[in-house]
């Protein structure tokens, strides 16, 4: 088929223009989520300046603090899985060689060398992407009698997360595990912050009535520890 050059050029320009315009809108994304577990995301953050083998004793309150309100998109956080969550974390901490210290209530004088090196706090958040609500700090955790062993801390203190870590986008029903080092100097910012040396977050796993929630929680907690090989006494 022979065409005049002018006609052919016009055809070329038309085809090219059509394709070029299509490029802006077109794209192919063939994958699709196969089950709800595929939506589970686990985020962990370490303080790269910390040697985690230096810690031995840790304290963990037997309560999961819930942060919630009635905002649209929030989920109702139950207590059905609290014991499972806390026991799974305790099990993994023990496997890492850390020893749990039980804090008596009210606080009493602990034997020498029995002050915890770490405090592990577990928080569930029923609000979506709520920076102000999530940031737990003293306002949510000040009730814990264990703070009595670090009298320097008090109202107004926040949690100082490592590095550039900021609380970005997360779903309602996210579980946070924070590992604080209250023996380290408070971070010199305003308001002052207790250093957090490790954080694990299970995005959106809480809430709802899915029969698989328990499995997703244990899998997520285990994954958080598995992907943090720097933790532990060895």
């Amino acid at each position, binding site marked *: *088929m*022979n*065409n*005049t*050059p*002018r006609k*052919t*050029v016009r*055809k*070329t*320009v038309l*085809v*090219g223009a059509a*394709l*070029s315009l299509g*490029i802006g809108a*077109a*794209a*192919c*994304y*063939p*994958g699709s*989520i196969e089950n709800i*577990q*595929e*939506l*589970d*995301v*686990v*985020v*962990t*953050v*370490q*303080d*790269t300046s910390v040697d985690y083998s230096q810690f031995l004793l840790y304290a963990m309150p037997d309560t999961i603090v819930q942060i919630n309100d009635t905002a649209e998109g929030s989920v109702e956080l139950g207590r059905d899985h609290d014991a499972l969550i806390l026991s799974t974390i305790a099990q993994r901490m023990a496997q890492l060689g850390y020893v749990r210290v039980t804090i008596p209530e009210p606080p009493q004088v602990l034997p020498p060398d029995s002050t915890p090196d770490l405090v592990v706090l577990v928080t569930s958040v029923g609000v979506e992407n709520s920076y102000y609500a999530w940031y737990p700090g003293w306002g949510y955790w000040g009730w814990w009698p264990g703070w009595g062993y670090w009298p320097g801390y008090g109202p107004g203190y926040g949690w100082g997360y*490592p*590095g*550039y*870590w900021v609380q970005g*986008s997360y*779903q309602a029903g996210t579980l946070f595990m924070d590992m604080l080092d209250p023996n380290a100097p408070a971070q010199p910012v305003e308001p002052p912050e207790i250093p957090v040396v490790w954080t694990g977050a299970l*995005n*959106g796993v809480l809430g709802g009535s899915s029969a698989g929630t328990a499995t997703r929680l244990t899998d997520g907690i285990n*994954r958080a520890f598995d*992907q*943090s090989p720097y933790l532990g006494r060895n």
Partner: protein
Amino acid sequence: MGKTMRVAAAALFLTLVLSAESRAQQWFWGMEYMVSTPMSDTKEFANDFSWRNFGIQGRNLVKDNISVGLYFGWNVFAEKTDTLISFQGLDVSGVQYRYVNAFPIMATAHYYFGRRRGIRPFIGTGAGTYHSKYRLEIGQVAFEANQWHLGIAPEAGVIIPINWNARAMLNVRYNYGVKANGITLTYWTFGVGIGWM
């Protein structure tokens, strides 16, 4: 993007002008289906032997054994992975869907062996730009980045006569988009096509 687009537009314009002013009357129009495999950074992001590739081209035979033309393509790489994402103390795990949509927009030049109406092996290259879309989905969040790469696409193949006008074409093309924003776009395509002269 601005500089890259200007260079690409200039290359396309030059090709059209050369084609229009050439005395040769014969054009070859072709479309091709390809399979492709990513390399280097592209493979690292989405390691996929892809069955989703398509191209269309026009070549003006300015001499018996030389053509200049245009090539447009669409190459898709997709990978489902649970690879741990690590960055400066931050680790993220979860099922991820990763995609690269690459759109080469090229001016081309080819050299042909053999007789005009016979089986014609050829070598050539495209030069122009790749528009690429990188997308990562994890959980309910998606991250997307658009990038323009200046690039070349050396190619070898053969055109086989089917009848007086129709031609079959087999080709292999190395696609190379130079590094932009820290990412190099690299992949091979293996195509089979049909064309008309």
